[in-house]
């Protein structure tokens, strides 16, 4: 009976690893067509922006404002200042608004 949680976790981990290697195994040693290359240039960004899309669905003005500030910061600075600006401005805005 105690096997079920362990089996669930192991199978989950195995399936996750499978999703990680599948794209590589399919495309390794393959010359990409221009069409495929165009997809590969842009698709990763589609994936990243998809992951953060839930953050844009909010009715809290403080969070939307913090997102805008983060986006602006990201357009000019590197990782560390952007993360600090984002966290601090979010905390302050949530306190104020």
């Amino acid at each position, binding site marked *: *009976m105690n096997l*079920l*949680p*362990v*089996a*669930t*976790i*192991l*199978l*989950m*981990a195995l*399936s*996750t690893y499978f*999703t*990680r*290697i*599948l*794209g*590589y195994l*399919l*495309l*390794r040693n*393959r010359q990409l067509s221009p069409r495929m290359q*165009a*997809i*590969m*240039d*842009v*698709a*990763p*960004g*589609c*994936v*990243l*922006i*998809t*992951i*953060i*899309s*839930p*953050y844009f*669905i909010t009715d809290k003005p403080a969070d939307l404002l*913090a*997102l805008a500030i*983060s*986006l602006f*910061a*990201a*357009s000019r600075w*590197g*990782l*560390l200042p*952007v*993360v*600090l600006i*984002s*966290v601090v*401005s*979010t905390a302050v805005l*949530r306190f104020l608004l």
Partner: protein
Amino acid sequence: MAQLSYRSQYYHEFLRGATTVIPVMIGVLPFGLLLGAQAAQKGLSVGLLSLMTGLNFAGGSEFAAVALWTSTPHLITIVLVSMLVNSRHLVMGASLAPYLSHLPRRKALPALFFMCDENWALAMADATRRRAAGQDPAFSLSFYFGLAVTLWTVWLVSTTVGALIGPALGDISRWGFDMAFPAVFFVLLKGIWKGIRCAIPWLVSLACASLAYHYLPGAAYVPIGAVTGIVAILLMGAKV
């Protein structure tokens, strides 16, 4: 002598990776604590949670699994939902493949175990920059392992600590640490920006994923956002 310089270069690259990922840790750490706290609430033991975060190492699917967790977990549902959340790895692995062509499979396959969003995007941005600078190979495996091992350790430790001290944490989201997550992704997106041509498919992905997130249950927004963006690229392709 050559052996020595190779080793010192390896350490140098590993260290460069480990330091590059430090700002990302600020965003990852609170999420790890939060996941641990939620798992403890759901009755998932510390040992099981560490097993999950250590072997699975994909936060999104772990939050989903913990949300679905019961004393007798529904194996099939959890595995399927987790695969849905992780479907993006397919696109990520495919986009990384050309950069890994100089590596034998026995090196590439273990490296791919660590391919999470942050490691992948930082490695892609670094490889793009190194290629532009004429460095060969563009993809630095030791840099990647520097990122990967560091972030994996942070994830494993923070989720475990979260499970241990769980309820004492309270609501950590009010502090604003959760916003570090999209902030990191904004910077990562800048790293893989390939000119204004990206903007339309990215916005299509964002719009469709947001709508799907709002109107559809669960993690359906992940494949929907990725696929609609790719369709947008294909539709644009005829015009470019």
